[in-house]
C-alpha cells in the first residue's frame, strides 16, 4: 500500500480510508448482486461517491468533484431516469438478470489486467517537487511532492501537452451524441 502512504501518515486519514474502502466494496458488491435494478443504481451512486472520497484523501480534489459531478450528477441520474421510463412502459417490475456470467468474467479479467499493467509500468504523471520544479515522474511519491494547485495544472496540461487526446475525446463524445439523436429520430418515424 505504498501509494497511500502519501496521506496516511496523518492520524485521521487511515480510519477514513478503511471506512471509505469498505463502503465502496460493499456497495459495489450490492450493485452486481441485487435483483432490484433501482436499488442497484442507488448503490452504484454510493460506490461512486466513496471513490470521490478516496480521491479527496489523495488530495485530488478536482478529480473528486468531477467524479461526483459527472458520474453521480449526470450518468447515474440518467440511468435512474431510464429505469423509471422502462418500468412505466412495461408496467411490471424491472429486475436484473445474471445470465451473462462468462462475459462478466472476461471483462472483469480485462479490467483488472489493465489496472495492474498501469500500476506495474508506473504511469508517468506530472508532478511538482517541493522546490516548485514541475517534472514527469513516478506516481508514487512522498508527501509534499504532489502539486497543490492541481486544478491549474490540469487546465494547463489539457490545453497544451494533452490537447490532442482531449480534443479526440470531445469529438468522440460529440459523435456518440449525434448517433444517439439519429437513432432516437429513426425510431419515431
Amino acid at each position, binding site marked *: 500500500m505504498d501509494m497511500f502512504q502519501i496521506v496516511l501518515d*496523518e*492520524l*485521521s*486519514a487511515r480510519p477514513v480510508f478503511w471506512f471509505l474502502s469498505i463502503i465502496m466494496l460493499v456497495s459495489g458488491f450490492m450493485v452486481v448482486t441485487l435483483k432490484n435494478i*433501482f*436499488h442497484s443504481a*442507488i448503490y452504484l*451512486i454510493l460506490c461512486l461517491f466513496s471513490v*470521490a472520497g478516496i480521491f479527496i484523501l489523495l488530495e485530488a*480534489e*478536482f478529480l*473528486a*468533484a*468531477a467524479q*461526483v*459531478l459527472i458520474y*453521480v*450528477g*449526470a450518468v*447515474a*441520474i*440518467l440511468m*435512474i*431516469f431510464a429505469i*423509471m*421510463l422502462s418500468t*412505466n412502459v412495461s408496467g411490471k417490475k424491472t429486475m436484473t438478470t445474471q445470465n451473462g456470467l462468462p462475459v462478466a468474467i472476461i471483462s472483469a479479467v480485462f479490467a483488472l489486467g489493465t489496472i495492474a499493467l498501469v500500476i506495474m509500468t508506473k504511469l508517468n504523471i506530472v508532478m511538482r517537487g517541493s522546490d516548485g520544479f514541475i517534472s514527469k515522474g513516478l506516481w508514487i511519491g512522498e508527501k509534499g511532492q504532489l502539486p*497543490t*494547485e492541481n*486544478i491549474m495544472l490540469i487546465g494547463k496540461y489539457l490545453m497544451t501537452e494533452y490537447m490532442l487526446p482531449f480534443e479526440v475525446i470531445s469529438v468522440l463524445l460529440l459523435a456518440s451524441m449525434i448517433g444517439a439523436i439519429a437513432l432516437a429520430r429513426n425510431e419515431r418515424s
Partner: protein
Amino acid sequence: MIAVGITVALKEILASFGLSGGLLSVVTYAILASATFGLLSVLALFLVWWERKIAGHMQQRFGPMRNGWHGWYQTLVDGLKLLQKEDVRVATRDKVVFFWAPVMCFIAAFAAYIVIPFGDGLIVADLNIGILYIMAITTFTVISLLMAGWGSNNKYALLGGMRSAAQVVSYEVPMVASILVVVLYAGSLSTVDIVNSQAGNFLNWNIFRVPYGPLAFLTYLVAAIAEANRTPFDLAEAEQELVAGFNIEYSGMKFAMFFLAEFINLFTVSAIAVILFFGGWHGFEFIPSFVWFFLKTFAVVFLLIMIRWTYPRMRVDQLMEFAWKFLVPLTFLNIIIAAIFKHFGWYWEL
C-alpha cells in the same frame, strides 16, 4: 483544504484544552458543523415565514398574523405540529428508498455550506474546488427527489421526480457556464478567492467588472430558480397537475425535511449569487462583514421570492426548449466573449 479564520481560531482554543492530532480536527469540524446546522435551521424557519409574509402582501392580504408580532413564530408552531403528526407510510412503498430520500435531501442541502463564507474568515473550509464542490454536492438533491418519486410508488410522485431530474440536468449546463465567466476573471474556484478578487470599490463586483456580467447574473439566476425547483420552474411539484409531485406521500417530519431543505436551497443559490457577482462579504468597513453578506443575500432571496409570486408556471416542453435552445447557446456565447475581453485586457483591474 486550507483552514482559515474561524477554523484556525477554534482549533487554537481546543488545542489549549489539550486536544491534538486527528481528534482535534474531528472535534473542530463537529463543532463547526453543529453551529452551521443551528444557524441554517433558524434561517430556514425565518425564510418560510418571510416568504409567506411577502406572498401575503403581494396578494393584498396579511399572511400569518396570529402567533406573535405579525406571526413571527408561526413557522415554529407549524414545525411542532409536523413533529407531532402521524408518519403515514404507504404499504406499497419501497421501504429503504422511501426512508432515505428526505434524509439525503436534507444532507445535500446542508453540505453545500462547507465552502460558503458568511463573512471575512467565517467559513468552515476553504476548498480549492469551492464552487465546483457546491455544484457537485447539490446534485444529490436531484437523486433524493428521484428516490422520493420511486420510493412512494405513486404515479404523481414518479412524474414529479422524473420532471425534476430532467429539469436539473438541463439547467445545470447554463448554470455552470454562467459561473465559469466569473471563474475566468477570478482565476480560482475557491469561494474565498472569488470574493477577495472583488474587494475594494463596489465597481469591482463581478456584475460590474466582468463584461456582460449582468447577463451572466441573469442566466445564473434563471438556472438557479430552476435548480431550486421554484416557480416558474416548479414542475416537480406542480400542484395543479401532480397534486404535490415528489413529496405527495410524505407526511410529518419527513415532509418537514423536504420543506426545510427547499428553503435552505433557496438561501444557498442566493448566497452563491452574492459570492459570485456581488462581492460576498465586502462592503463599507465600519459594518461587520457578515452583516454585509446577510444583507446582500437576503436582497437576492427577496428578489427570488418576488419572482416566485409574480410569474406563472412554464409548460414542460417550454422549459426544455428554453434551457437547450436559448440559455445554453447564450451562456456559451457569453463565455467566449468574456474570454476575448479577458485576453485583450478590456476590463479594469483592482
